[in-house]
């Protein structure tokens, strides 16, 4: 991220970056949760936590990246 506030702010790019963050959040932390579940045998507790948490983190990341000055 550049410091001059010009983080390639064209709307197309922002929209797709946020989609990408959401997908990635769900895939990464949902995946980690799924692996934990398989390991501990607690299915589907951690998968659900991972998907929801990943989704939230994706939103947070998109928000922090594109709405701050």
């Amino acid at each position, binding site marked *: *991220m*550049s*410091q001059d506030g*010009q*983080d*390639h702010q*064209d709307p*197309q*790019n922002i929209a*797709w*970056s946020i*989609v*990408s*963050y959401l*997908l*990635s*959040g769900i*895939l*990464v*932390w949902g995946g980690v949760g799924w692996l934990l579940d398989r390991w501990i045998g607690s299915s589907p507790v951690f998968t659900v936590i991972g998907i929801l*948490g*990943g989704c939230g*983190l*994706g939103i*947070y*990341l998109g928000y*922090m*990246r594109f709405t*701050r000055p």
Partner: protein
Amino acid sequence: MTAIALAAGALPAGTGTHTILAEEFHAPGLGLFEWEPLFNIGPVGVTKPMVLAVVLSGLLIAFFWAAFRRPQIVPRGVQNVGEVGYLFIRDDIARNIIGKKGDQYVPLLFALFFFIWTFNLASVIPIAQFPVTSRFGYPAVLAAIVYVTWVGVGIKAHGLGGFFKAQIPTGLPKAIYPLIIPIEYASNLIVRPFTHSVRLFANMFAGHLLIALFAITAWHFLVEQPTVLGFGVGIIGVLMTIVMTAFELLIQALQAFIFTLLAASYIGSALEEAH
């Protein structure tokens, strides 16, 4: 099947649908996109999309060759058209998105835009009538070229470590970084090339399917099995084919533009990130 239901819904209530809606109506499906080889070159079966890709690339090269072969200071004819295209890519995409360093990426962006646009246009060119980019291989390779360029430019600009470090957003609470960093990398390195290519592929795929659906509806109800009551459905098919073709013309240019714009945006981010 859905098409039959839709067509039936479009008719006045009470009409015996069985008498007018021929059972043999087959909505187009994936078969539209599967081509038997036209001929073989060694072990490679050459299909229609391949032939289109080669022929259209040839035409495109010939066109711009003609445009810029003997450039005049005051452009005339083809050179005029070529220059408008060039300036559009240079000013509206490269300089606008990447900035001062954008000029050196104009050749790549220029080629991307015009190849994709031409490949998309094949959808509405008579005889061709197939968008080359609706075969996933074509957008996938184009997105891969952009991806490799992005990684290369980033590593060249910041070094290997710097390239990865540059992607981490700054100014967040420290505790959140272990959670955020995997998402950032997964997004940039894995998901992004995928969405970049799928967006183009899916748009062209769906557009072709829609045009084919309406055209086949028109053909079926007006030519193959014309009936008095099916006539209205056939007319809707004809009108929608025309409307969708016009709409597709817009989408084709738009998707080529978006693909190029995002390519520029990725390259720009590789150059500017990290301080």
